[in-house]
C-alpha cells in the first residue's frame, strides 16, 4: 500500500502533543501520536499546572493570553479530575522597589484588558493571611487558573482518539524527517506532516534545534484546606527565572483542590540527572518560608524533579523546520507548556492548513534561530 495511513504523525504525547492531536483531528486530519512513555508523563506530569498570563515580552504575552482564553472556552468540557480552578495569581511585592514593578505590570495589563487589581499590604494580608506581615503588596491577576496537567493531557488525547487519532505508546522514535517516522524497532510510519513535540527530547530528534534541559524541583504537602487561596509568586521570580547561568530558587506556591499545596520553584542548567538535590530543595524551602513562615509547620508528602525544555530566547518553537518541508516543531515551551499548549496547537494547525492565525506567529517560527545564526 503506497497511500499513507496518516496525514500527521506527532512525536510526543505530552500536553503539547495531545493538544496538537486534538486540534488536528478536529480539523479533519488523520493523526497518529507516538511516545516512548505515557500520555502526559514527562514535563507535563512534573510541573505545577499554572495557566498564567506572562509579560516578559510582547510575544510571550500574546501566546500566554491567547492560550489562557482558549482554556477558558474549554473549561466546561474538562472532566472533574482536571481540577480546573480559577484561583488567580498574586505577584507578591516584598518592598517598595517591587511595588514599582507591580504598577508597571498593572499599566501593561490594563492596556491589554487583562483583569487585575493592585493590592496594598493590608489587602494582601486579608487575601492570604499566612504570608508574613510587612510585605509591600502585590498584583492579583484574576483570570489565572490552576489545573492538573496529566489529566488535561489525557482528556485532550482521548478526545482526539474519539475522532480517530491513533496512539502508539511504549516505543522510541529513532529518526524523524522526510515524510516518515522510523521507530527504534525499524517500523516506519509515513505521513505528509511530522510534528516534533518531544519537549526536552526534541533536539535529539532534530539536529540543530536548540533546546536545553532546565531542571526544576517541586514539593507537595499534605491537605490543609484554606491555608492558601491563590497561586502566589514572588516578583523576584522574574529576576531568578531570567538568569540563564546560575541555579536559582523563587517563592512560588499553588493551592490544589484537595487542600494540598505545591511548593516551588527552582531552575538549574546543566543538571542532567533527575534525583532530588537536597541543597537546592533546602534553598527553595527556605525561600518559601521567608514569605510564608507557617509552611514550616506543614507535613509534606513528597518532592520530585522535572526538566523544562528551554530555548535560548525563552519562546517556544512552533512551525516549519527549515530544510525539511514535512517537518514541523512544537517544542521548547520551558515552564509555560501547560499554559501555551492550546495556542501552540491552534497556530501550528493554522500554518499547516494555510489559515491566518489569530496572533502574529513570527516570534515562534523555528526559522528565527537560523536567522540569528546567519547574523552572528
Amino acid at each position, binding site marked *: 500500500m503506497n497511500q499513507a495511513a496518516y496525514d500527521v504523525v506527532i512525536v510526543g504525547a505530552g500536553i503539547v502533543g495531545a493538544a496538537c492531536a486534538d486540534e488536528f483531528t478536529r480539523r479533519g486530519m488523520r493523526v497518529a501520536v507516538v511516545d516512548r512513555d505515557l500520555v502526559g508523563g514527562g514535563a507535563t506530569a512534573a510541573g505545577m499546572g499554572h495557566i498564567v498570563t506572562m509579560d516578559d515580552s510582547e510575544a510571550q504575552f500574546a501566546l500566554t493570553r491567547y492560550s489562557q482564553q482558549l482554556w477558558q472556552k474549554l473549561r466546561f468540557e474538562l472532566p472533574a479530575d482536571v481540577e480546573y480552578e480559577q484561583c488567580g495569581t498574586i505577584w507578591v511585592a516584598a518592598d517598595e522597589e517591587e511595588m514599582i514593578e507591580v504598577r508597571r505590570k498593572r499599566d501593561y495589563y490594563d492596556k491589554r484588558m487583562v483583569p487585575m487589581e493592585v493590592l496594598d499590604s493590608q489587602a494582601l494580608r486579608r487575601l492570604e493571611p499566612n504570608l508574613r506581615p510587612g510585605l509591600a503588596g502585590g498584583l492579583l491577576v484574576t483570570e489565572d487558573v490552576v489545573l492538573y496537567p496529566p489529566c488535561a493531557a489525557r482528556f485532550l488525547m482521548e478526545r482526539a482518539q474519539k475522532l480517530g487519532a491513533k496512539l502508539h505508546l511504549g516505543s522510541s522514535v529513532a529518526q524523524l524527517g522526510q515524510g516518515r517516522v522510523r521507530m527504534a524497532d525499524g517500523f516506519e510510519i509515513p505521513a505528509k506532516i511530522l510534528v516534533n513535540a518531544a519537549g526536552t527530547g526534541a533536539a535529539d530528534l532534530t539536529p540543530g534545534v536548540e533546546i536545553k534541559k532546565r531542571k526544576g524541583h517541586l514539593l507537595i504537602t*499534605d*491537605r*490543609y*484546606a484554606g491555608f492558601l487561596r491563590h497561586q502566589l509568586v514572588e516578583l523576584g521570580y522574574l529576576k531568578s527565572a531570567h538568569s540563564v547561568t546560575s541555579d536559582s530558587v523563587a517563592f512560588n506556591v499553588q493551592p490544589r483542590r*484537595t487542600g494540598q499545596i505545591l511548593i516551588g520553584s527552582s531552575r538549574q542548567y546543566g543538571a542532567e540527572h533527575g534525583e532530588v538535590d537536597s541543597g537546592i530543595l533546602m534553598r527553595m524551602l527556605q525561600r518559601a518560608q521567608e514569605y510564608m513562615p507557617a509552611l514550616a509547620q506543614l*507535613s509534606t508528602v513528597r518532592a520530585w524533579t522535572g526538566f523544562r525544555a528551554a530555548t535560548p530566547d525563552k519562546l517556544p518553537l512552533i512551525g516549519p523546520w527549515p530544510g525539511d518541508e514535512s517537518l514541523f516543531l512544537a517544542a521548547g515551551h520551558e515552564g509555560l507548556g501547560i499554559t501555551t499548549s492550546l495556542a501552540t496547537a491552534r497556530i501550528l494547525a493554522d500554518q499547516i492548513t494555510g489559515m491566518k492565525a489569530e496572533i502574529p506567529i513570527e516570534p515562534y517560527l523555528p526559522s528565527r534561530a537560523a536567522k540569528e545564526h546567519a547574523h552572528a
Partner: protein
Amino acid sequence: MLSQLALTVNGAPTVVPSGTTVAVAMAIAAQTCRTSVSGEPRGPLCGMGICFECRVAINGKPHCLGCRVLCEPGMDVRTNE
C-alpha cells in the same frame, strides 16, 4: 487493674487504659481516623507508622500518625478531614 485516662474523641469524652495509642482510642470510640480525598472513611492498616492511613488531628494539629502516639489525659483527638 490498669490505670485509666480520659480524653475527647471528636468532642466525646472517652476513657482508655494508659498506654493506649490514639489509633486504638479512635476504634474504642467507634470513630474513623481520616477521610480520603474522595470522602471515604479510613483507619489504621499497618499499625506501625508506614501506611499513613491513621492520620488524625491531635490538639488541633492535623496529619498526626494515630498509631505512633500514646493517649494523654485531656488530649483532643479529631478525625482528620
